[in-house]
């Protein structure tokens, strides 16, 4: 099979540039795995803690009491009290709230004065609102004591407030929520897979196509004793083998990194979805390959065609964070449907036809794209043949 062998040779030659994508992908996947192991508290409601910086000009029992209660909802981040350092921390959300208790606050508070606590926040943010609630809750209850029990000592006040705060609202977690968080890793992994897979497939398949589309080589090939049919079969087989190899390597890595993903049906559906995407991307790469005339243009086109859809379809930034217009534009790319299907699969707890049908619809759309890409590529190929 000389044609097949040649294709493999071309792929081998371009392996380094493809490996860059694969290595970066695996690196990120490993990072996600190590990061996601710590959030293994599925099935239980967890108190979210926001990061805050706490500076106090005095150290009274009241301030200590406030700090103690805040520690239930906040992590205290140690920061040097320098403007630029604090600005940096706020900008990069290392803290979302900086509390500064002025000297004399406690005295003023106990005497019904108007001293206030300084806060520096990310304006209008959810986390600032959350911390606001905690601070105001503590101080308002403390004020209730101060106003209504004349001459209450500071120690007794802090003690009583702590007592009030010792019980919590009971929280139930809805049952179906539990599997969703187990699939977090798989969703990240498979969504990001779309980027790497498209980059590698375009680089590989377009590189093969470029060689075969060279007019001189084509003419030479036509006078070889190999029939055109056999040549085409070998050529398609080579592309297919390459695409499948990419798919198997990358999906396989998922199970190496996270072996228990194999046991969940959700992951298996994602694997199927990625196979559909592989077919679709192969079609797209084939089309790009048949349009390209120079090797240098391939990396430019490859970058635009892979980065663009990934940004707007929810690979790098989750779909729920994208605005409606962007998603509408994105729905003209197969990546959008792939990511959408993955997100749906992650939320599934049962796998009847009825529940799966929206996901299957997404996969059908991906296949539709594949067919469209192939049809255009064949039309282009035919046109070019006539020209040459």
């Amino acid at each position, binding site marked *: 099979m000389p044609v097949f062998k040649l294709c493999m040779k071309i792929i081998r030659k371009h392996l380094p540039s493809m490996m860059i994508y694969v290595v970066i992908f695996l690196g990120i996947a490993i990072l996600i795995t190590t990061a996601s192991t710590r959030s293994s508290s599925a099935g239980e409601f967890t108190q979210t803690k926001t990061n805050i910086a706490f500076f106090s000009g005095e150290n009274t029992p009241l301030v200590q009491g406030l700090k103690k209660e805040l520690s239930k909802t906040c992590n205290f981040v140690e920061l040097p009290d320098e403007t*630029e350092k604090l600005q940096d921390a706020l900008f*990069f959300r290392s803290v979302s709230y900086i509390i500064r208790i002025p000297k004399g606050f406690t005295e003023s508070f106990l005497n019904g004065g108007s001293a206030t606590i300084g806060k520096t926040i990310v304006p209008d943010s959810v986390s600032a609102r959350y911390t*606001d609630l905690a601070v105001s809750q503590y101080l308002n209850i403390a004020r209730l004591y101060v*106003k209504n029990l004349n001459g209450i000592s500071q120690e007794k006040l802090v003690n009583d407030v702590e007592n009030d705060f010792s019980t919590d609202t009971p*929280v139930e977690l809805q049952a179906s929520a539990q599997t969703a968080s187990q699939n977090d890793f798989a969703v990240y992994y498979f969504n990001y897979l779309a980027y790497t897979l498209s980059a590698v497939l375009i680089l590989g398949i377009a590189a093969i196509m470029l060689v075969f589309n060279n007019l001189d080589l084509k003419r030479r090939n036509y006078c070889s004793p190999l029939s055109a049919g056999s040549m085409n079969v070998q050529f398609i087989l080579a592309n297919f083998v390459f695409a499948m190899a990419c798919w198997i390597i990358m999906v396989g890595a998922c199970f190496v990194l996270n072996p228990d993903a194999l046991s969940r049906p959700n992951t298996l559906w994602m694997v199927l979805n990625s196979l559909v995407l592989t077919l679709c991307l192969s079609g797209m790469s084939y089309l790009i390959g048949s349009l390209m005339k120079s090797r240098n*243009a391939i990396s430019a086109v490859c970058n635009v065609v892979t980065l663009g859809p990934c940004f707007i379809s929810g690979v790098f930034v989750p779909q729920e964070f994208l605005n409606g217009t962007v998603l509408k534009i994105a729905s003209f790319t197969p990546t959008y449907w792939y990511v959408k299907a993955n997100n749906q699969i992650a939320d599934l707890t049962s796998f009847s036809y009825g529940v799966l049908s929206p996901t299957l619809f997404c996969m059908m759309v991906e296949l539709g794209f594949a067919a469209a890409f192939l049809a255009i590529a064949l039309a282009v190929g035919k046109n070019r043949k006539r020209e040459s």
Partner: protein
Amino acid sequence: MFSHIFITRLKCLLRDRQLVFWTLLFPILLGVFFNMAFSNLNKEETFQAFPIAVVQSDAYQKDTAFRTVLESVSKGSGRIFDLTVAENRQAADKLLAENKIKGYITVGDEIGMTVKNSGLYENILKAFLDSYRHTASSVSTIIKTDPAAVGRGLLNDLGAQKDFTREVPISSAKPDNILNYFYALLAMTCMYGGFWGLKEITDIQANLSPRAARVNVAPVHKLKAFLSGFCAALLIQSAEILVLLAFLMFGLHIDFGTKTVYVVLTALAGGLAGLSLGAFISALIRGGEGIKVAVLLAVSMTGSFLSGMMYGDIKYIIQQHVPILSYLNPVNLLTDAFYSLYYYDTFGRYALNMGLLGVSTFIFCAGTYFIIRRQKYASL
């Protein structure tokens, strides 16, 4: 002679459409993608009243105190919740399962809540219910200690929640962390200008390209030829940077702060730094063009990554843990300069960044000069 070489080089460089793509169109496209993908991220961080439900029951109807508080925080512009009353628990469960609400409240012997996740909004709901619970507990403690407190207006005090905090802004600019992506993108584009510098060296070192071999035979001082070419590259690079900057500012409405003149100067200085970096790498590394391009790409992409172009928090992490790296990385120096101009009210850090960038530009230029000067070829 200068103008002759200058114009020829200008034509020569501009005809390299691939380079024009990478140094101008690609950053513009990335900017558009960034803008599309990140435009909503800040909205996501902004607090908005969120939907919850309360399950209808006799206990809820009887508990007027709780009902009043719940209704009071669910109306008006400063509201926390968009409240719906669910007929029964099944109805509330259904709303929750369909993601129509973040959680629901049940009033029975005690007040409880049911949610699906443990996110910030769910925690705000819990903080609200906790605060009701804690207040109730404090009222009973107060009455137990001093029953007369009710007569002195304890219940009135309950309604009068006071805000004990006052906002102290730390900067005149908003801490909008999306901006850093665009600053890093602009810094990356400056470094991509290195491709022009790389090409200048390839076209002046006789062992690297036939064109350079031809230029070397001409009776022109090599430094003069190189400087003319370098100026042509600098002109193109500066024009491209300004186009990108204008596109970011006026096309995508990226906020660069109020010190626009400094921003433009910084961008131009960054362009020069990038150009000289490319020339230096090209002069330093012996080998084919492929290797030079790969090294330049590796330097600029690693630099961009470390200054937060792919993942914003990296810049801060590096600054916290390996500060030396953030001062050695030219992409970060530039990103940080734009950031300082936008965010700080002082010029200290900006000056430090620009000083270090100036030093590295000088090193790149001097290095290039000493490598390429006086190279003669007996035979090629």
